[in-house]
């Protein structure tokens, strides 16, 4: 275990909540649905909310031709999150649906459920309603990973994770394809649906 110091000398990139749901139809195959939610409280582009849904991650088309979309109230922030973070995450790397995702303006956002058992993030863009729904939640645990361990490979990351044993992603009430799978994360076998609160990404000091 390396030495712990109270003050991280690195540069904070962004901070907020960043839960996700990744679904497969074949446990041995690739993901057929990928979704991330961002509630960012601090970033170089200000605060904001964004929901990224790739219902066809291997298809280079955006909404409405394919269910690939990003609903946000801060487009500059959402572009920064995709270009500097999401594209580098192993789960999203090479997914042509990511760059094809259509950006839509967020007209409403709300959170519901009791976070001890179920948590739902709902966003609207006009008539379109997108929902991410986590259930059967486990206890929270804190993680802090170094650059070599983090999803981008270049940042330190602090977060509080809760594993969800049930989850769905819905567009206009219709669930997108796939079921939860399992993956190795932080040395544990956990499901591919998670809440991630109080997440801070730090660029390490040189």
């Amino acid at each position, binding site marked *: 275990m390396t030495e*712990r*110091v109270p*003050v*991280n000398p690195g540069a904070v990139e962004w901070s907020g909540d960043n839960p996700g749901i990744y679904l497969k139809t074949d446990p041995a195959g690739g993901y057929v649905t990928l979704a991330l939610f961002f509630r960012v409280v601090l970033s170089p582009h200000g605060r904001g909310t964004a929901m990224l849904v790739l219902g066809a991650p291997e298809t280079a088309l955006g909404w409405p031709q394919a269910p690939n979309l990003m609903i946000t109230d801060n487009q500059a922030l959402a572009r920064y999150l995709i270009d500097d973070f999401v594209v580098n995450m192993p789960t999203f790397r090479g997914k042509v649906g990511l760059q094809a995702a259509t950006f839509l303006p967020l007209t409403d956002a709300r959170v519901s459920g009791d976070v001890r058992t179920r948590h739902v993030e709902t966003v609207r863009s006009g008539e379109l309603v997108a929902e991410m729904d986590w259930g059967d939640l486990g206890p*929270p*645990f804190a993680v*802090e990973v170094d650059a070599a361990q983090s999803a981008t490979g270049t940042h330190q990351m*602090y977060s*509080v994770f809760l594993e969800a044993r049930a989850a769905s992603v819905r567009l206009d009430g219709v669930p997108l394809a796939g079921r939860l799978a399992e993956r190795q994360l932080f040395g544990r076998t956990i499901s591919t649906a998670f809440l991630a609160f*109080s997440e801070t990404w730090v660029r390490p000091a040189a």
Partner: protein
Amino acid sequence: MPIGIPVNAGRIDWTGENPGILLKEREDGPWSALALFFRIAWSPHGRGEAMMIYERPDLASGPPAAANAVITDNEPMARYLMREFVARFGVFGEVPAFAAMPVLPLRASATSGDPRGGRYVESVSSDTISVELVWEDLGRPTAIELPPALSGTGAHTMFSLLVEARRASILVNGRRLPGTPVPREQAGIRTTTAFLYFAETWISG
């Protein structure tokens, strides 16, 4: 580099945001007004918001004598925070007002500004009290990890993201309370008594 093992073995008590403002009219004088705000994403009592406002820290009375009160949308959570945390946060738990604060239902809340800009504001209202906390002249965001010996309770490991404010004010029903932030030191950082704390997690054990 503060990173050790990826998963902390301790128990999460709560996680969320916890900005605050402590004001004095002169640096060597008593506290003239205090405020602490919680936006909780997870706790044993669920999520919610709570504003602890101390208009008169020296007075062991709540409204109408003074706006010493807790305004919240989750009373069990607010009582848990008061009992287990605020009571142990130095002056917040030591002043006469602490024991006299009624818990009032939150009717509205709002956030405005940008913590990487010049100004950030949290506003909370009950039926009779509206509180506005304003942080200005904001500093560089800094990720901190405090061991129990340095944390507010003395018993928890605490992760947070600190943004200090060199100017701040507390308004109650539109009236600015007396005082200004004063210098303080935390974990070797020279900072002030007006702070934004985001992504804050308290861990037992």
